[in-house]
């Protein structure tokens, strides 16, 4: 008998739960790949992003949708974006991006670096108020905004992916502590 292939395990084990009307879920099937722009390569990169993902390059703190692989491009810092997408082959996510962007970017797979959690529901901002130091009001953080921040001592990338919906990403190794922090916030803030 051939030795079995290695089985993947996800940071939150496919977690899904609704607390006080707020739905928490670990999204499945998403890859996250960073793309760093070589010095002097902004034009090439913008063209490659448009060609490879059908996306406009976002400014830092913004995100833009693409028309391939259900992609969203997150502007993380002046010379770096993260591409969040549904990869044809999860084990080759970086290769997919590298193929699409060619030599216009240095790519690094970040899919396993971050535990992802969507938090959605009418009271979601009241819940996040307990752990998120950022101002999440519509005027300060409209849908599509993305930021790095800290919640409960943990690094977090927060993307507002809808009016009452956020995607949170936090380092994989502390995923259990992070989930606890978010669950507790939702429970504490719910009536």
């Amino acid at each position, binding site marked *: 008998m051939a030795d079995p292939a*290695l089985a993947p395990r996800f940071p939150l084990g496919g977690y899904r739960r609704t607390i006080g009307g707020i739905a928490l879920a670990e999204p499945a099937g998403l890859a996250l790949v960073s793309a760093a722009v070589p*010095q002097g390569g902004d034009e090439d990169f913008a063209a490659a992003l448009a060609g490879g993902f059908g996306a406009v390059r976002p400014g830092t703190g913004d995100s833009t949708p693409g028309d391939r692989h259900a992609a969203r491009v997150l502007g993380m810092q002046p010379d770096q974006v993260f591409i969040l997408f549904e990869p044809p082959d999860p084990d080759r996510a970086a290769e997919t991006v590298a193929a699409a962007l060619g030599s216009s970017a240095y790519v690094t797979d970040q899919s396993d*670096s971050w535990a992802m959690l969507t938090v959605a529901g009418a009271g979601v901002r009241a819940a996040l108020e*307990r752990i998120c*130091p950022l101002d999440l009001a519509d005027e300060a953080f409209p849908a599509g905004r993305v930021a790095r921040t800290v919640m409960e001592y943990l690094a977090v990338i927060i993307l507002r992916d809808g009016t009452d919906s956020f995607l949170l990403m936090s380092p994989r*190794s*502390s995923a259990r*502590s992070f989930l606890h922090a978010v669950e507790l916030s939702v429970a*504490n803030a719910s009536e």
Partner: protein
Amino acid sequence: MSGPFRLEGGAVDRSRSLSFCFDGRPMTGHPGDTLASALLAGGVRLVGRSFKYHRPRGVFTAGSEEPSALVELRSGAHREPNTRATVAELFDGLEAFSQNYRGSLRWDLLAANDLIAPFLSAGFYYKTFMWPKSFWERVYEPAIRASAGLGRLSGEADPDCYDKGFLHCDLLVIGAGPAGLAAALAAGRSGARVILADEDFVMGGRLNAETHEVDGRPGAAWAADAVRELASMERVRAMPRTTVIGAWDHGIYGALERRTDHLAAGGGKPRQILWRIYSRRAILAAGATERPIAFGANDRPGIMLAGAVRAYANRFAVGAGRRVGLFTNNDDGWRTAADLVARGVPVAAVIDVRDRAPVAEVPGARILMGSRVTTTRGRRGLKGVTLANGEKLALDCLAVSGGWNPNVHLTCHHGGRPVWRDGIAAFVPGADLPGGMAVAGAAGGAFTAAAALAGGHRAAVEALGALGLPAVAGDPPGAGDEASDGVPFWHVRESRGRAWLDLQNDVTVKDVVQSHGEGFRSVEHLKRYTTLGMATDQGKTANVAALAILAEQSGKSIAETGTTMFRPPYTPVPIGAFAGRSRGREFRPTRLTPSHDWAERRGAVFVDAGMWLRAQWFPRAGETHWRESVDREVRQTRGSVGICDVTTLGKIDIQGRDAQEFLNRIYSNGFATLAVGKVRYGLMLREDGIAYDDGTTARLGENHFVMTTTTVNAVPVFRNMEFARQCLWPGLDVHLISVTEQWAQFAVAGPNSRELLRKIVDPEHDISNEAFPFMACGEVGVRGGTPARLFRISFSGELAYEIAVPARYGEALMEALMAAGEAFDAVAYGTEALGVMRIEKGHAAANELNGQTTARMLGLQRMVSKKKDCIGNVLSERPELNREDGLKLMGFKPLDPEEQLAAGAHFLAPGAAAETANDEGWMTSVAYSPMLGTSIGLGFIRRGHARIGETVRAWDALRGADIPVEIVSPHFYDPEGGLLRG
């Protein structure tokens, strides 16, 4: 009716009754009552005992400034001591207990302290407990501790939960009295984002306690309408039961919101929330605190602040007495007499220190202008007062007003000092306010309702203007300018007995005079010597009068005397609220390795490594001592093969056209010649030339490297490199991103490691010694194509590899390695065996890279290349760091192999005295080496390289050891390195 002192009207809900207990006695009150108002309504005047003299004390105020009516609330583990009855909202089932007595509240044995009061004056500790010296710890301190403090802690863990959070606004309004409400309305109607916070459970401030009219309606009704309007505004957040406790930098304020304190049970929700409020502008509308006048025996239950007596009558519908006297130095105090008479409470006398025409007629009361109260009587409650002319009056309540002090506290939290204003004889906020703060209303010395409303409105319009926001607020609400004239009058000189200034700490006028007489001239010294202004009330009712008396003594003005420093928090905050949810297991986040669950299933013993939990060793059945497990793990690894999760090592992905040049500048050794598919060991220095971190860097492609750092320095190294990239060499094309979490990485070490990996790595990858020699690296597939990276590096000194897979496959890879290793009797090893093997091999780790050591000391001086520059290169050449007789990292073996070495021991020459001058170095790391069968150590010793074979002593006073050791090479195991190349 809930009690004999309940009046008609007020803002309590008479349709419902609430039952509560005080000292076990069942009582009733109504929604809208505080514990204090319900006790007064029930005729309870004695509610506690004072701190030092155990004097009977009652309710003194109607707010958070209360110094006297401190009680314990709730029972069992929920018990909370030193709670102010004046702000405790009544609920059905509330249990309250008086505190600070032995025996009973009525018959307190420690009231004997009052009889020896002459010996307990200011500074008595310092004078009394001087000798004999040995008595301090055994006799005095335990006795003092036993009688000190007020309420009792439960001694149990706090069963309530707490939370914290973050809020943002254009305008924070602190206090919801007339000024605060006017400000919030103006800003809210203009569309600004407003947070309005008030410590009370009903907003309105003094409007609820007075009979002012606003816009032609009763002030309390106007306030209620204003609160309703604010609540309807989407961008306004009105937060009752929320005390802003401090002003921090950049418009950040701390606020404590009491969420469930007014409920019988919290329902599992946080009891209190500590908010951090980010404001662009803030208006302090914190109001003012009435101050008493000091006179003899002015601390009896029944003696209260005049404004509080008014608040109990108007808001809570409670008459504080049936024969009330008023003692005042100002017009505002007269309002108490007028309001009481209007509510049918008999006022027996108005005693005004001013020798002038009466301010008003008070039906039924004797008006005594130019008079003073010199002393009082009544053991457990006021029965009467004596005037300066010797006349005695029978009274059961004396309302005292000495004027009002603006609540300037938050204006001083950035070090600003208040300034004295003669017109109101009080301190007002100085010019040096925290950035973005304005002050309105009584907090700024504008005491009338009209001035407060207009001031709050104006401050909001100005704040919006400063923010560039439109103000469409209209005109401020209108009110009358009630009379508030007064004269400064601090204490009655004719009083013979003790006249209290600070009711909470039992500090009297005499204490302040004595303190000054003994040389404590500064107000800060006065505070420490007498304890004036300390504890839960922070002297809110006491400080200014004490300053006035200190000023009198020193012949200075009050302005020159100054105040003590105001610091957060404004009112007490439970430690539990500061801790919030960070308690127990969730005190800090925990980082788990990919094989954590696997290791847990095998009974691994874990150790904290920063936030990481790492497997320390894996006990097997029958092993009774950790060393048995660790020795076995070492022997089996060195004998066959062992596997260790090393995911915690920092991993940094480095890409760019100039990545190689960047590494060449970061590391002290050369990286210009590292070939693709090769790994190199690298050393980093700090700017000052001291060794900083070490690790390996693999070249995966022309412009692509992956660096490993030590676990502990993963973040700082990344941060420093990002600094170098962005600030030192912005011209280099280099990009960094952490991949520590991305890859699960395992060390596979031991003579059978290659054979084990052959069972895992897909066969198309040749990992023979020829194709994949020591320090090779490359991408491979495992178990049918799962992507992996293989590095032939060794920390143990064995033939060894590190293999990395995407973290999602980490646990599966661990299982696969262990399953494939069964044929070799493979062993999982933990950090302890890892440490033993690195000590046997003489590798430096955190104990050696401790921020004091250089490459030269570590024996790595050749790794500081002089052919190129790098961070720390120049300063590593400082002569003192390069002395020939400097410290060197060496190995140490006890002459007697049975001896156990200890890290931290210092090296001394045989026969040398254990003195600093004779210190030759220190032991950094030790382990029992199962391979050598003895304890071994690494350490730094002077001229070590020239002293191999010499015997010194490892002297350890801490553990009482003095062990002769031989200086040996630090490379105990396979010094030639043949194994790792095999």
